[in-house]
């Protein structure tokens, strides 16, 4: 079939119910956070004021939500209409990733009742990188919901509204490409100001470039993972040919990224740190090996026809991008003065709860909304 349709099926599957249970338990930890403060639930401290929620839920979470952005680049900027069938699922993943990143932000900030301050012009600090990230992400969440609205409107049969949305959609599609370019690169710039506290293995003035390129190939990787996973369990249209092409693009992007990464590290004279054998050196090697191996595999055309190979390579790339962001925000960050950080049970559970909610929403959406093409 050439159009998207709900996949139907039971909602209350074991996976769904388990996720629901995890989410409910996480609500208890969230309650504790609001009643007793951040210190009661998290291990964040004065040396590591940002922890799992920022590094994982916000930075990695939004990066994982770059599927929509990456596909939009292909379809609209490079004019490759053939990838259109992958856009809607990617858009949905982006929707979840970004919306729940917003939830994580509300949980993480200390003075959440004043969070709207950053939207008030007289409070905005134009020099702040984080302001730009916050405003762009906020705007992008709105754009995503608008971009996704035709899917809802189809389900409710609101054809006139749908037609209107489609007419003005080009504005939001353009925004949906501009905004992530801005804020995903700026998520890299956020860490530039921490120069003296970030290991030279990760600190560079090219952080915005590296974050941007990595979020693009991460976006493609997420599309491959998500499509493969759904395809392995649900009767969706076989997109493996498209996935193969995307895998090729990914491989090239990774190559460019690695060249910039290593050239920059070499020019700054810190290549030796990678081979010191300590935690930082090993994390750096891990992060890049998780890219080099799949890149090499995917450069072989036969592998781009093998679904299993593509899936595993994509998983590796997703992990690599996640590890890169963990390294930049937490592991490579050392404020000195003897501080250490590792997320607490409460912190992990809350993140887990948010992810579980995401999985539940994902399962519900693909079964009740026209996201995928049926086989």
């Amino acid at each position, binding site marked *: 079939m050439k159009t998207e349709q709900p996949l139907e099926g039971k909602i209350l599957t074991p996976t769904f119910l388990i996720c629901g249970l995890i989410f409910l338990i996480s609500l208890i930890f969230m309650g504790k956070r*609001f009643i*007793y*403060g*951040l*210190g*009661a639930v998290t291990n*964040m*401290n*004065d040396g590591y*004021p940002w922890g799992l929620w920022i590094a994982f839920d916000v930075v990695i979470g939004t990066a994982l939500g770059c599927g929509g952005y990456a596909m939009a*680049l292909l379809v*609209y*900027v*490079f*004019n490759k*209409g053939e990838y259109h069938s992958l856009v809607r699922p990617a858009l949905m993943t982006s929707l979840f990733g970004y919306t729940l990143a917003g939830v994580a932000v509300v949980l993480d*900030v*200390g*003075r959440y009742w*004043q969070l709207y*301050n*950053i939207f008030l012009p007289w*409070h905005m*600090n134009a*020099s*702040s*990188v*984080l*302001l730009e990230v*916050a405003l762009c992400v906020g705007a992008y969440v709105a754009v995503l919901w608008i971009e996704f609205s035709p899917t809802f409107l189809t389900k409710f049969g609101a054809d006139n509204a749908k037609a209107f949305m489609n007419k003005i959609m*080009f*504005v939001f*599609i*353009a*925004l949906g*490409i*501009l905004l992530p370019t*801005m804020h995903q*690169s700026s998520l890299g*710039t956020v860490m*530039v*100001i*921490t*120069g*003296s*506290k970030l290991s030279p293995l990760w600190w560079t*003035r*090219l952080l*915005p*470039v590296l974050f*941007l*390129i990595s979020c693009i190939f991460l976006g493609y990787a997420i599309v491959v993972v998500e499509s493969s996973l759904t395809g392995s369990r649900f009767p969706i249209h076989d997109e493996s040919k498209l996935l193969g*092409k995307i895998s*090729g*693009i990914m491989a090239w*992007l990774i190559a*460019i990224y690695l060249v910039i990464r290593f050239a920059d590290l070499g020019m700054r004279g810190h290549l030796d740190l990678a081979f010191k054998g300590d935690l930082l050196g090993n994390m750096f090697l891990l992060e890049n090996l998780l890219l080099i191996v799949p890149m090499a595999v995917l450069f072989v055309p036969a592998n781009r026809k093998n679904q299993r190979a593509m899936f595993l390579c994509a998983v590796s790339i997703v992990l690599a991008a996640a590890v890169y962001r963990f390294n930049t925000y937490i592991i490579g960050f050392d*404020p*000195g*003065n003897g501080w250490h950080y590792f997320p607490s049970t409460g912190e992990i559970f809350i993140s887990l709860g948010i992810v579980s909610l995401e999985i539940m929403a994902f399962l519900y959406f693909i079964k009740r909304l026209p996201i995928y093409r049926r086989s």
Partner: protein
Amino acid sequence: MKIKRRDFLKGLAGSAVLAMAPPAIAASSEKNRLPDALGILYDATLCVGCQACMVACKKANNMPMEFSGSQRQWDNPVDLSSKTLNIIKEYENGTAKVKDREIDGYAFIKRQCMHCVDPACVSACPATAMTKDPKTGIVSYNKDACIGCRYCAVACPFDIPKFEWDNPFPKIVKCQLCNHLVAKGQIAACASGCPTGASIFGPVKDLLIEAERRQTMIPGKYYEFPVAEVSSTKKEVHKVKQYIPYIYGKNDGGGTQTFMMAAVPFNKLGLPTLPDRSYAAMAENIQHTLYKGMILPIVVFGGLIFLVKRSEKNKKE
């Protein structure tokens, strides 16, 4: 189907080049010292570790007690925190027999907000909760603007802004150079509490002159040092030690308004080694290059509208 390499590279090269644009393109955001800036000069060689400055600070700012050491009879924090705005720390090496000696010696260091010339916290805060006074240069915090994101704490190279982790309605806490006392014409409590003149308050340009004067002193001889304020007539006579020939804070990280002098290398005392250009300026530079006047984003947006419309047209055909 092969991806047109041209299209592919075109799309990416543009953004990569722009992001790597050399600093010369953007207007410099280097900040200069304010002429009437106020600050503190701390001289580790005059400090006797009496901690009177910590007591005075807690009193003047109504800070609570903090017990994080092994003794619980009196306030003895191990670091700055949401309860401690100013702390004296002690460096020890080997047998720690002689004061202000690096090997087998000990020394004291005062840690407090440095009130930087180009503060990272002011640059970082998205809600303008951290502001630098345009006249005195004192960096202060406004809890009514703050959203509690803690980017200021992440950004500060000296790890000064501290957060109230145990409070469900938390604030950021840091030294504000007793601006509530300065407004009344008084001086910072730590300086007025210091018996030896190790911490003195005053206009930054006078403090720098005093710091340079001390750099010219001959070790072993007795000199007069002002107590509490740089312009004070009350003086203490001290025997001068061999200073490290460097005034910490003069240029570090773009410069600060709190200067440190010591006889033990500053990195051993826990002070970070920073380049003369502040990281805040570097980050702002990137932002301004890309987003000044929002010109680039608007241009790109225009280009994207064109591309999207074209692709939609192609889809229809």
